[in-house]
């Protein structure tokens, strides 16, 4: 179901303990701290492995997340905005990660640019409630999606490289 390298990536993302969603005021803060700790470790791992591919931050309540992800293809860096909300039923149901700027450019998306995940993602997530968090959703959901879709979209000419004008 999961290949070796993904398995290795996964095993390096700290697992979470608190099963709490955003409706549970106090426990949610605990969960959110675990989310951040896990994400910080994951991003740090990525940097150490020279495989840094996203940044995320959230609103104060930790219910809305946004940031950037990037994908290197033929030595060019393609960058996309990422966003998602934490559903009330989290962590039983995974967040629906969206890349709004690609909405309508690929059939492997639902409305609003929510990425269409493989058949394996949801069962895998369900088996690992509440241990999987946002980092796992990125690693198992968005990561593989980018790896498959972005080269395809580039080859079709749907997206093209933009010189870094900003920053």
């Amino acid at each position: 179901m999961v290949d070796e390298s993904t398995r290795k990536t996964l095993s390096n993302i700290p697992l979470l303990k608190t099963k709490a969603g955003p409706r549970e005021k106090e426990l949610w803060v605990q969960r959110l701290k675990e989310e951040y700790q896990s994400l910080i470790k994951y991003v740090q791992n990525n940097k150490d492995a020279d495989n840094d591919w996203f940044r995320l931050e959230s609103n104060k309540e930790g219910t809305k997340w946004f940031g950037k992800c990037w994908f290197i293809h033929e030595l060019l860096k393609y960058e996309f905005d990422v966003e998602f909300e934490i559903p009330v039923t989290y962590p039983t149901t995974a967040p629906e990660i969206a890349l709004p700027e690609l909405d309508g450019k690929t059939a492997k998306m639902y409305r609003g640019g929510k990425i269409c995940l493989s058949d394996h993602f949801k069962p895998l997530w369900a088996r690992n409630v509440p241990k999987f968090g946002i980092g796992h959703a990125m690693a198992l959901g968005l990561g593989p999606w980018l790896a498959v879709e972005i080269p395809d979209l580039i080859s079709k000419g749907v997206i093209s490289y933009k010189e870094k004008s900003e920053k």
Partner: protein
Amino acid sequence: MTSVEELQAKIKDLEEKLLIATQKNVARQKIKEMSSEVVDSNPYSRLMALKRMGIVNNYEKIRDYTVAVVGVGGVGSVTAEMLTRCGIGRLILFDYDKVELANMNRLFFQPHQSGLSKVEAAAETLRNINPDVDIHTYNYNITTVENFDNFTEVLRKSSLSDGPVDIVLSCVDNFEARFAINTACNEFNLTWFESGVSENAVSGHIQFIVPGDTACFACAPPLIVASNIDEKTLKRDGVCAASLPTTMGIVAGFLVQNTLKYLLQFGQVTNYLGYSALTDFFPTMTLKPNPNCEDSYCRLRQKEFALKPKPEIAVEAKEEKPVHEDNEWGISLVDESKDVKDQVTVAEGVQLAYTLPNQAAVEECEEATADTDVSLDELMAQMKAI
């Protein structure tokens, strides 16, 4: 120069168009009481005939009921139209999506409605079909924190007597929204129907959920109707979902049929009805709730249900066994502490979408996130600083 014939033809054409256009604006007046009088002008005569035929005892009671339809897509819009034509008292519609041309392979919506919100477009059409139905619309995503409380409040207070709605119909197309509905209905003890059509468009199901009495959506992994397609031949190349108006219409039909049976108390309400389009196979079964359900409100409802005196169903002279007394297919909930096989067959032609591990068998992990005294703000700052 245009000839007289051409101009005459054009006038005729325009006159026809004008006739159609003016007819569009003919709306029928509201009708105060449902009459069973059989005249051309009575929109309820064929429905009230159900009484005369002894199928339904109290058809006009339908006007007292409120139904919430969550998701007004391929299944939900048809569901809403059926209920409207049946003369339901109040209809509450939830959806955050817009009508698109890509929806036109399904029933109900029309190309000129593209760009409108689904709930608004639906409400307009439905009010035109039957102005007696009181239609309320909510254009938002129910799964988000900012809308969920309003969603539950509407479900609890929007009946015609300001109480809870009589039934909730889930016509959504994703797991997250189903789970949100399940959470709300367990918490506030609302009876609901789950419905769905598979992403390959060739199977579907409806499931009747009475919190505490029948299995909730969190009691077991979702059920899937076997489509008899070899997984290996099923290509998902470049597409997320296929859909057919046929399958969706069939599922909507089952859904509303059972809703009518539940509200008007005739026939038997089916607990689970599956549909496999490729083989025209319709598995049915009853699912008992899982005493170890993850949802604490589900467990609470189960306790309440166990204490409640069961209504004795008056059976007429001849003794008939309840439909689901025998367990021909050996349906049972799987004990998660036991080693479960990869594929669990729940009933013939129905499987669990996936199986859950026993809690001990955890994926190997490096470390669990430790409790530290670092504050959330510090963590947020740390994340930003990377």
